[in-house]
């Protein structure tokens, strides 16, 4: 009984947040209009690279192909002490005007970015991870948002480059969902992550409030929260697309999520003053909502796993009591019943699935993405919430027991 009440509360929360974000999105459709830049200011893009010999070439080419005045675009590759041919590959681009620097690896992307900042001369500065690629029109679309002087950063839509396996298919849908949510967050002035791939910043923010927090696990969350704390704005350009390579194996995905989630926890603790009335939607709805959704997911996950274990034990002992002869159970029921167990909870869960699908389809439409998501969404629905809860359990465990995280 208590469990049923909890599940109903979780479903209500899911429905409420889904409707809230859809409502927010459609209420602010004007925000999707193209912001044509009044001028083309100089922009510097830092490419921090550590052992990226396989993807660096594609990343730099995508920057060179940007539809933006060439004399207003500065590309700075920072080789972060790579052990492979990253530096050698980067040097090949020097004749195309790309600035290449190398430094000793200090164990975090923030160090490379701060190093890059000292070499940049643009009025605006961005970063593009060396495993990401940017669409040719992205910068032009984004720069117009800076006409508002309060805007300190503009985020693009980040998508998964190729979905060759189940994990990447799940990530593809996850990122598409993120595209929708980030736009909705921007309408609420609540963006709390300015992702590594191609977020553009007003450089004077770094000049006035310091560079990246070098040792931070998620320097992109730290900068975003710092911008929010200072009362500035972060915008999102939904149809400026950046593609990144999603981890291919569970192990690398787990490592990435450990860093993201532990980093999120640490930064939110450091910026806990953002909670509360003063920061409006961010402080009262978005950040607390994130924690509530994590708590609900972990509880549902734990219950499902524990129940699954007990059911499996029962199933094992039941089968053992009939000598593991399961054949008779495959026989059809004589009543030929087509009884579908459609209790209210399942009906509401189906409705929630459609809300989620609506978000993904909206992302596809307004970020001008033509990939197919049908099968991927199906896999995502079944697997993602389990992974999400598991990653959080691991992250909380790491934080509680003060375990070290590899970069």
């Amino acid at each position, binding site marked *: 009984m208590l469990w049923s009440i909890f599940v109903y509360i979780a*479903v*209500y929360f899911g*429905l*409420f947040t889904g*409707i*809230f974000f859809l*409502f*927010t999105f459609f*209420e*602010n459709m004007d*925000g999707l209009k193209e912001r044509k830049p009044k001028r083309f200011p100089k922009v510097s893009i830092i490419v921090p690279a550590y052992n990226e010999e396989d993807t660096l070439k594609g990343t730099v080419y995508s920057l060179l192909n940007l539809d933006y005045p060439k004399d207003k675009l500065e590309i700075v590759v920072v080789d972060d002490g790579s052990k492979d041919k990253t530096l050698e590959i980067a040097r090949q681009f020097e004749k195309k005007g790309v600035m290449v620097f190398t430094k000793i690896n200090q164990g975090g992307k923030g160090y490379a970015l701060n190093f890059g900042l000292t070499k940049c001369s643009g009025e605006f500065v961005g970063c593009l991870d060396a495993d990401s690629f940017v669409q040719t029109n992205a910068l032009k679309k984004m720069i117009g948002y800076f006409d508002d002087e309060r805007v300190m950063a503009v985020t693009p839509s980040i998508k998964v480059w190729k979905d060759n396996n189940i994990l990447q298919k799940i990530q593809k849908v996850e990122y598409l969902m993120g595209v929708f949510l980030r736009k909705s967050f921007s*309408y*609420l*002035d*609540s963006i709390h992550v300015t992702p590594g791939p191609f977020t553009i910043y007003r450089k004077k923010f770094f000049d006035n409030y310091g560079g990246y927090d070098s040792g931070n696990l998620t320097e992109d969350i730290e900068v975003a929260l710092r911008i929010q704390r200072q009362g500035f704005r972060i915008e999102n350009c939904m149809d400026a697309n950046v593609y990144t390579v999603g981890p291919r194996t569970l192990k690398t995905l787990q490592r990435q999520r450990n860093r993201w989630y532990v980093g999120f926890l640490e930064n939110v603790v450091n910026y806990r003053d953002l909670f509360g009335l003063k*920061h*409006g*939607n*961010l402080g*009262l*709805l978005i950040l607390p909502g994130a924690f509530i959704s994590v708590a609900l997911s972990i509880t549902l996950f734990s219950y499902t796993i524990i129940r699954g274990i007990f059911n499996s034990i*029962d199933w094992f*002992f*039941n089968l053992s*009591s*009939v*000598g593991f*002869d399961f054949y*008779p*159970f495959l*026989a059809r*029921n*004589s*009543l030929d*019943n087509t*009884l*579908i*167990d*459609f*209790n*209210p*909870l*399942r*009906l*509401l869960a189906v*409705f929630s699935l459609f809300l989620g699908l609506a978000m993904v389809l909206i992302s596809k439409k307004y970020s001008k993405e033509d990939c197919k998501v049908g099968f991927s969404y199906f896999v995502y629905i079944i697997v993602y919430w389990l992974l999400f809860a598991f990653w959080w359990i691991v992250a909380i465990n790491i934080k509680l027991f003060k375990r070290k995280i590899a970069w």
Partner: protein
Amino acid sequence: MEGKKINKLKIFSIFITTTFIFSVGIFFGNVITNSQLDRISNLQQDLRTQTLSLELQYALASQEPCNLTNLDIIGDELYDMSELLANMEGSLGKLNPDVLSLKEYYSLLEIKHWLFLEKVSKECNADIPIILYFYSNLGDCEKCERQGYILTYLKRSEENLNVFSFDANIDNSVLNGLKEINKVEEGELPVLIINGKVHEGFTELEEIKENL
């Protein structure tokens, strides 16, 4: 653009919208579930008609009263009905009054068919294996689920077997009488009555087979 400030009117509107959708979901979910209850009720009516027609066939067949062919079918359908009822218990709860009412009626149908089989067995000198199974699903009978599993296995493997399962918690005068005769209230659940012999507590597959 809303900016940082919370739009209380918007939150309130979304609260109303969510509550409306939530209520509609619960309403339609219940409508669908109740329609399933109606379906079970109709199936029970069909079974009642079948049992009645079987008895009339028996009474009318003066030449060959023991040559009835529907005995097994009704027994199978009665047993499978218990699975449908278990599904409804999962959806609506074990203490739902509609489910309890259907289960009570189901128990009466079972008793009726069991008595008829006993009569046929005696008068026709036929070997009809019968198991009466008393269980509880209120958490006070640890081994009942496994006992039910074994009986389903037996029912599905042996065509002639008749298993009648009774929820010992149902309060019905006829069922209470049956429990009293077999001293089910005093014994440890699950209780099996295999061809008239009472077995208290969990009974292994082999033991059941030996007594059939």
